[in-house]
């Protein structure tokens, strides 16, 4: 091949093929991240995400941010440090939520007939926006981990509050105090779910407010900071362009 030869006939063709390629890259990145992130999230925090009666004030608030800050941190390390695009966290989270919403409608509702107001996914977008904004303004992954990671944990419950609040009001049912979300769980029977594993009576899960959610969010933010660091470096590793000699493997 000659270095002087051009791959395109004109600048216009170069621009067109470049733009087309941008869309193909975006689609592939979106769907591949969606697949990997979704399988990760559903198998590390999924049960809390599937059902409103699992969306309690302590474990849901603690677990969901910790396990969901992973892929946003890794995708940020690619899109910001290689391409200066401050939208890695939002792309990852939007991808996950697109996959979740499609599935909750077409399968949880469309195949097994559980109502969508019982199976809607958690909202992760506010925390992702803050992660991207902190990275864009600071240009530092350390600041993003500390400030953004803490904010990611703290914002999770407020970000879901408008959706979950009506289902967290207390009701009395057959002489027992519970939330409306718990009542949904009693009425929509899940035959294959081991309910005995869920510790609904432990600690202060049923205090209907007060300190439980903020304390859980603060703890979640603390762990999210550490997880962000870890996954930033995972992201750097996945960004490598190295080759290995076939004879070595």
């Amino acid at each position, binding site marked *: *091949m*000659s270095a002087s*030869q*051009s*791959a*395109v006939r004109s*600048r216009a*063709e170069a621009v067109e*093929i470049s733009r*087309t390629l941008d869309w*193909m*890259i975006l*689609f*592939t*990145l979106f*769907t*591949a*991240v*969606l*697949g*990997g*992130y*979704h*399988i*990760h999230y*559903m*198998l*590390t925090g*999924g*049960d809390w995400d*599937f059902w409103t009666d699992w969306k309690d004030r302590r474990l849901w608030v603690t677990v969901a941010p910790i396990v969901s800050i992973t892929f946003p941190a890794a*995708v940020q390390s*690619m899109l910001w440090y*290689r391409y200066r695009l401050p939208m890695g966290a939002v792309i990852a989270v939007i991808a996950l939520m697109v*996959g979740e919403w*499609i*599935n909750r409608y*077409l*399968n*949880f509702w*469309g*195949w*097994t007939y559980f109502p969508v107001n019982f199976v809607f996914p958690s909202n992760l977008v506010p925390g992702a926006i803050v992660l991207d904004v902190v990275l864009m303004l600071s240009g530092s992954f350390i600041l993003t981990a500390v400030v953004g990671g803490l904010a990611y944990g703290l914002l999770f419950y407020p970000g879901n509050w408008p959706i979950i609040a009506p289902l967290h009001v207390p009701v009395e049912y057959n002489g027992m105090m519970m939330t409306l979300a718990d009542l949904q769980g009693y009425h929509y029977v*899940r*035959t*294959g*779910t*081991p309910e005995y*594993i869920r510790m609904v009576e432990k600690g202060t899960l049923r205090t209907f407010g007060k300190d439980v959610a903020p304390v859980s969010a603060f703890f979640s933010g603390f762990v999210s900071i550490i997880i962000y660091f870890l996954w930033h470096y*995972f*992201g750097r590793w*996945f*960004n490598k*362009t*190295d*080759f*290995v*000699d*076939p004879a070595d*493997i």
Partner: protein
Amino acid sequence: MAATTDSVKADASEAPLLNKTNLIAGFMLYLVFYSFIRWYEGVYGWSAGLDSFAPEFETYWMNMLYIELVVEVILASTIWGYLWKSRDRKVMSITPREELRRHMTHWTWLVMYGWAIYWGASYFTEQDGTWHQTIVRDTDFTPSHIIEFYLSYPIYIITGVAAFLYAKTRLPAYQEGLSIMYMVSVIGPFMILPNVGLNEWGHTFWFMEELFVAPLHYGFVFFGWAALAIMGVVNIEVEAITKLLKKDLA
């Protein structure tokens, strides 16, 4: 003037840089096929998929499984065999335009791989959650498993390996060895399929119920992370295509 006319003729008869028909056809192929599969699940999951000992389960679901396995072996052998047999033995001497065209064809494969990963790892995997947690999981071969593990996963494996083979056999950018991230992005998600062995063993001998966050499922999680290696492949591609287009875009 004559030379110009010849040049235009050559351009007109030349294959386009991106075959959009193939791209759209590939996208639609998976969309239409999986829509049919979802319809099949909706109808025969409820009418024939609730009891694995029933004769109709054998008819509608086990036969589906056997057909899938045979067709997948044939398809994998045909596609991978064709890509290998038709490899370019002078790949380092192609023209820049031909190289760009091949990159765009490679991207058609990568788009298909991403699309197949979505259906397998996202759509059908979480779908498995609702069927097992709320309806029934009385055997390792449930309606959701027969589609998720033995149809959607092999399809993304076939697509991913095909993309890798295309790159390795036709693109100069991949001739200096084996791309570590390309291998991770193909072999990692592939390993989810053998991990089904652990999953079924654990569900058979430990507990039949379905708790998605159970440690038994962490093998799927670990190998799912490998999808992030697509970022390394994107970086290799961007570097290679930038070299081809840089002076025309400057």
